[in-house]
């Protein structure tokens, strides 16, 4: 049984900056799919069933470039591998014995960067038993609004200027950046964030497909080891 108050509080959290930050990029993605020859139902299906923008973008690019099914599967798997540690990090935060295992596997579909960041930012203020439904409202609303924005981008992007579309695409990484800055509370996280950015730039020239995952893994592990004392203290 859903705790509707927590669920609607999660939705209320998503309305505003989180929806704008993600929705503008989904709008631009809808426009990109249209210009790449996808139809409306295919564009809608992509966000409905995948809901992880970098992976969706890689899928579309690989199709346009003439890639095989294996190319597409591996490219998306690598691009979205970041969701694995994010999920391992999120589940212990929202877990409550009240919820059966299968519900977590359903909830998994709405785990993405925007919902993750926003949940991490507020979870300490929420009662443990409310966190699951709160995240369901937050992530679920972001998911549904992303579907709507992709469809809108597909249908009405011809009414929007090129400059506006470019601006829309730029909002998303800047929003992620600002959310990351708001996380700069522990030394190990500050180190991991800075090292992750620097390493990804270096590694991109050598292993472009793996650069993000390897950079994050190395930076996070170094941050954890160097500031281990802080880990024990906290």
């Amino acid at each position, binding site marked *: 049984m859903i705790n509707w108050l927590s669920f609607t509080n999660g939705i209320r959290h998503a309305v505003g*900056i989180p929806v704008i*930050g993600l929705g503008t990029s989904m709008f631009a993605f809808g426009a990109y799919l249209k210009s790449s020859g*996808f*139809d409306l139902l*295919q564009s809608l299906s992509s966000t409905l*069933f995948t809901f992880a923008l970098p992976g969706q973008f890689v*899928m579309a690019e690989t*199709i*346009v470039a003439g890639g095989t099914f294996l190319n597409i599967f591996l490219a*998306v*798997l690598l691009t*979205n*591998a*970041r*969701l*694995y540690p*994010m*999920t*391992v990090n999120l*589940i*212990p*935060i929202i877990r409550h014995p009240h919820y059966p295992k299968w519900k*977590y*596997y359903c909830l*998994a579909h709405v785990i993405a*960067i925007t919902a993750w960041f926003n949940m991490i930012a507020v979870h300490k203020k929420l009662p443990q038993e409310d966190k699951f439904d709160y995240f369901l409202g937050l992530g679920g609303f972001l998911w549904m609004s992303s579907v709507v924005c992709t469809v809108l981008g597909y249908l009405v992007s011809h009414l929007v200027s090129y*400059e506006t*579309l*470019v*601006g829309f*695409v*730029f*909002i998303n*990484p*800047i*929003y*992620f*950046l*600002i959310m*990351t*800055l708001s996380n700069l509370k522990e030394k190990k*996280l500050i180190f*991991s*964030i800075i090292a*992750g*950015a620097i*390493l*990804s*730039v270096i590694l*991109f020239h050598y292993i472009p497909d793996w*650069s*993000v*995952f390897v*950079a*994050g*893994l190395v*930076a*996070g*592990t170094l941050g954890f080891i160097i500031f281990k004392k802080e*880990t024990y203290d906290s």
Partner: protein
Amino acid sequence: MTANFIYFSIFLASVATYCCRAFGIFSAKNVSVDSIIFQWIKCISVGIISAVIAKIILFPAGLLAETSFSSRLFSTGVAIAIYFLFKKNVILSIFVSTMTFLIINFYI
């Protein structure tokens, strides 16, 4: 590319993405918020996200690739500066940064 090819590609992309999430749920079953592994995974998560951001801003694909490198870098600096100068105002920093980015690229 046929319609069936695209639909099957979407299916494969969805399976690949869900595998990452589902495997995360499976792996998290013995991880508690008090554990050392949880702290380690937290560091890796933020490290990966900052790597994603750096890649999107510095080596973008699609529309952003058509904009200048310096404009993206400068506007990112503006976002960080505004965020800290104006009491961590999220809306203001995103707005000013995006406007700066657009002005540099299209009106200068």
